[in-house]
């Protein structure tokens, strides 16, 4: 079968995930194209985090297919995702507070000189280059300890860490949830730049204002099903809200088990 000229980097086809009696995801399709920022929205318990974690290899999907560059792949372990170039920035960020920015960005992938001695200067230079390329200007020194950074700065470090490794897909779980207005704006700009650099970006957010500020496309989950997939410039907040709260479910039988 002939595939379209430019297959999505990541494509989910009919993926499902159950936790016991709870159907967290039911036959979801989702495409992530290079250079595109896709927002994933939905009410609490809609299945957003479940979808992210399955893509990241934390708990694999039960059914359905995951394709990367058009090829079917199995992601059963976080390392599988990392090897493909899928990076996830979790809401809790998981930075080591006592390490500085460079040390955090290179944690687990340090560069060496002879005799196993760390090449601090080369790591610092590249970390700075990444920050410059992403136009992260609010940081100041890359040698400050992460504990002293603001929420927005920490978010920037986590994002920069995720995109340093020739990653192709970056997934962000509520990156602006804990941020004030100015910092939210900075982080959203950063997210936008990831898309402009040709990465496929999946942004989970509850904040529709944020979503409309950066997303090219908006996918709506409701009770584990995708109920809408809209171009951001061809829809409205109202339409998205309707999909979130009352989007039509494909298969009523599948949703009897409501997580209440």
């Amino acid at each position, binding site marked *: 079968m002939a595939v379209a000229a430019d297959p999505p980097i990541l494509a989910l086809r009919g993926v499902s995930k159950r936790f016991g009696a709870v159907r967290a995801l039911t036959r979801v399709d989702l495409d992530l194209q290079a250079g595109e920022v896709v927002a994933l929205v939905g009410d609490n318990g809609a299945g957003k985090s479940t979808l992210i974690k399955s893509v990241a290899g934390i708990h694999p999907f039960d059914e359905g297919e995951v394709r990367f560059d058009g090829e079917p792949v199995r992601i059963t372990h976080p390392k599988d995702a990392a090897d493909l170039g899928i990076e996830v920035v979790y809401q809790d960020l*998981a*930075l080591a*507070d006592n390490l500085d920015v460079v040390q*955090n960005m290179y944690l687990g992938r340090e560069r060496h000189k002879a005799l196993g001695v760390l090449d601090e*200067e080369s790591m*610092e*230079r590249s970390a700075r280059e990444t920050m410059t390329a992403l136009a992260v200007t609010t940081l100041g020194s890359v040698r400050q300890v992460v504990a*002293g950074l603001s929420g927005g700065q920490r978010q920037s470090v986590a994002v920069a860490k995720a995109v340093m490794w020739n990653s192709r897909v970056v997934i962000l779980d509520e990156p602006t949830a804990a941020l004030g207005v100015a910092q939210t704006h900075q982080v959203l700009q950063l997210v936008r730049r990831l898309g402009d650099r040709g990465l496929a970006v999946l942004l989970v957010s509850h904040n529709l204002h944020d979503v409309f500020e950066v997303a090219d496309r908006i996918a709506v989950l409701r009770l584990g099903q995708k109920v809408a997939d809209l171009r951001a410039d061809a829809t409205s907040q109202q339409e998205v809200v309707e999909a979130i709260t009352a989007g039509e479910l494909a298969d009523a039988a599948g949703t009897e088990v409501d997580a209440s």
Partner: protein
Amino acid sequence: MSAATGSDRTQPVTESRARRLRFLTDSTALIFLVLLALVAVFALVRPDAFASVNNVRNIFIGAATLLVIAVGMTFVIVSAGIDLSVGSVLVFSSVISIKVMTALGNQGWPVAIAGVAAGMAAGLAWGLLNGVLIAKARIPALIVTLGTLGAALGLAQIITGGVNLRGVPVELTEALGFGRVAGIPWLVVVAAVVTAIGIVVLRFTRFGRYTYAVGSNPEAARRAGVKVERHLIKVYALTGMLSGLAGVMSLARFSSTNIGGHLTDNLQAIAAVVIGGTSLFGGIGTVFGTVVGVFIPSVLQNGFVILRVQPFWQEVAVGVVLIAAVYIDQIKRRARERL
């Protein structure tokens, strides 16, 4: 990319280099000044007795075994753990070492070397056991090492029948025990080499970086691909092996096991590490600080003896310094959390 590298050349130094220069930071610098002040006071008051070559040598010999243990303890505490078993493991290792040397005939270098290897291997085995129980079985380090503290000492006494064993090959006592290179006792050379390696490994290698990361945020380390459990096992194994080495050093120095003489080694090592600015919460600390933390008690003790101050004051003073060190750490943490 290459253009960026080119423009970078105009930058004089990276911050890494600058950072390396101010290695004496905050609390470590303070405690180092305290040590210098102590040395200065004792040396000024009694230059003849305190600052003599012999006395300085004695201070270093007295501190050598504790320093070796404390280097290992630094790694453990930076990884946010604790090891109470070091003194017992030291004793157990020295017992195994002397048993092996006795079985081989108590003389000659090959026998001595076999004894050293056996002692270190015994320590390594206890360290591995500690590490596996802590990292894999997820039993708190305090409990695991409290258990192995009792078990190692008990087994040492079962093996020896509770009496100290003699019979260290003269080669070992004369070289490692009393020997010197360029006037420096071998015991001190060994401790210095261990310390130097410890400084380099903790500060400049991936192993050290992972130790800080695991102690700072194990979940972050795990997500970054660090094998956290395996790393913790290595850290405890290292400390066990160094305790074994300290056991051999103690054997060489006293030509005998010293079963009852290491009951507080664990607390002394922990005190030294903490006085040296390492945080009991993990993620912060240096081997250099630990060196200072080892020498403050031993200089105090030595100085008080020379000044004929009741030596019990040493313990009081060390207690005060210890509490002050932890208090400073707390203040720093609180200040940081307010940011």
